[in-house]
């Protein structure tokens, strides 16, 4: 059976309570269409991880789909904070395992390499560590360097059930290219049990074979390939489209209160059948064309 799937089919493969690693970074390559579909399907109790908290996670948390978040802090860059995540932390409805960017990256790396733990110099002496020792003591330990005798802080590997990665180019086997910086995506993919690739462009495997050094996600890890243009909207996809500043401003304003955010969800998530209706709602071709990236600038 092939891996090509609709977004609804790919999302339906994720049971409530799954640990999902998300590819977003603040307001770029976020799994926005994916998050909207997860919410429409009523999936809940998720553990979400990413090195820097992003808009995809904030949307899911705001809709009540997330029980635990493993991340290194985050924001919507200059558009604002992750208001839904912050509100859920402040009210105690979200278990936030909060690290630094590198600590989460190291946990993925240990998972990707199949190591039992990874030592790190980060977090020592901080209240981040003190808080983690209360919230998630099972993930934090110390280990003695067998060569020098030095004591090190050690982190447990992170092995998500599924990584969901927004990419520019993939084939139907899931071999995928990521253009621009990749932040934690490669380690997320390689640490995870399986991968859902959501791609802007679907190409024949022959194209992948012509430039295989670009392949960041190997097809053998991939369970579903979803071909879905503009699926990161309103966040950016480098070399494909820019972020939609107007929409992100609207989102940031709507996340200031629970009531306003409910109205946002009613309009942009529950008010549409699928991604195609969403794209019409936000202004269709006219709007999307205005966001297309300049081929030299990449934005």
């Amino acid at each position, binding site marked *: 059976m092939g891996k090509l799937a609709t977004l609804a089919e790919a999302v339906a493969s994720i049971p409530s309570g799954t640990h999902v690693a998300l590819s977003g970074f603040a307001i770029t390559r976020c799994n926005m269409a994916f998050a909207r579909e997860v919410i429409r399907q009523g999936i809940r109790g998720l553990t979400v991880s990413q090195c820097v908290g992003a808009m995809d996670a904030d949307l899911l948390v705001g809709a009540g789909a997330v029980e635990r978040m493993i991340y290194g802090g985050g924001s919507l860059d200059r558009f604002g904070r992750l208001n839904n995540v912050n509100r859920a932390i402040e009210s105690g409805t979200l278990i936030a395992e909060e690290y630094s960017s*590198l600590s989460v990256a190291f946990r993925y790396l240990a998972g990707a390499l199949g190591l039992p733990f990874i030592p*790190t110099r980060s977090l020592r002496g901080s209240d981040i560590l003190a808080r983690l020792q209360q919230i998630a003591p099972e993930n934090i330990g110390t280990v003695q360097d067998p060569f020098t005798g030095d004591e090190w802080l050690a982190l447990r590997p992170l092995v998500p059930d599924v990584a969901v990665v927004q990419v520019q180019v993939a084939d139907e086997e899931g071999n995928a290219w990521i253009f621009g910086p990749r932040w*934690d995506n490669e380690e997320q993919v390689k640490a995870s049990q399986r991968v859902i690739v959501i791609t802007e462009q679907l190409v024949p495997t022959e194209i992948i074979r012509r430039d295989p050094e670009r392949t960041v996600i190997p097809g053998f890890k991939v369970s579903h390939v979803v071909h879905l243009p503009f699926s990161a909207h309103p966040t950016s996809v480098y070399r494909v489209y820019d972020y939609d500043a107007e929409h992100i401003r609207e989102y940031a304003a709507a996340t200031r209160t629970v009531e306003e955010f409910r109205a946002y969800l009613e309009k942009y998530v529950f008010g549409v059948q699928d991604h195609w209706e969403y794209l019409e709602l936000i202004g269709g071709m006219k709007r999307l064309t205005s966001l297309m990236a300049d081929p030299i*600038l990449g934005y």
Partner: protein
Amino acid sequence: MYAEDYTPFELMAVAGARELKDGEIVAVGIGLPVVASFLAKRTHAPRLTILFELGIVDPEPIHTGVGLADPRVWYRAKVMSSFVDMLGMVLHRGLVDVGFLGGLETDAYGNLNTTLLGDPRGTFTHSVGSGGANDIASSAKRTVIIIRHQARKLKEAVSFVTSPGYLQGGSAREAAGLRGGPVRVITDKAIFGFDPHSKRLRLESIHPRITLEDVLANMGFQPLVPDQVPVTEPPTVEQIRLIREEIDPERIYAG
């Protein structure tokens, strides 16, 4: 030739630039540190290497971005890679000379809070958290803190140590297994260093047109104050021109 007309933010950016030496590697977030780093690279430190945590080396932006996630900031980069590459194989490896940090509040020992305000065990407001800041504070050879000079931001003790400075002072940082540490705190009124033994914040210079009273009245604690405190070197005309015409023409960072 020194400039007459400049904003407090421009002075902070220039003071930040002066902390960077040619040939060094600097890890920066977004905001004033970006202006400081690009300014240093275009003046006295052309061989400076500028890193952004998500996997960007030495970009040459021509448009101002809204943050690290904005491809405007990545334009013409020499490397596009990952956290493990930048924060791991460069920073954690021990190759980053200087890290620039900012935050909600800092304290008498250069500890920085970017996580929350209030009581961590009671009512608090959550902010942005660490990102790469804790990693930079833990592994850079030295760090420079850039922060507004307000009593609510300069406190005897921060409510949450996101990024450790000298912790409780003295040898507390070394005892926690950390190298490096903050060397400078740059505000819009003054520049501070740290006493070599107690590691307590020590006034080093006061900006032009600012008085010692202004400095002390707007702090939540008493720093060490030497008998003689010089005036901060003002920006040059060329530095201000570069900031206004080339580095931050839309005046997004430097006010």
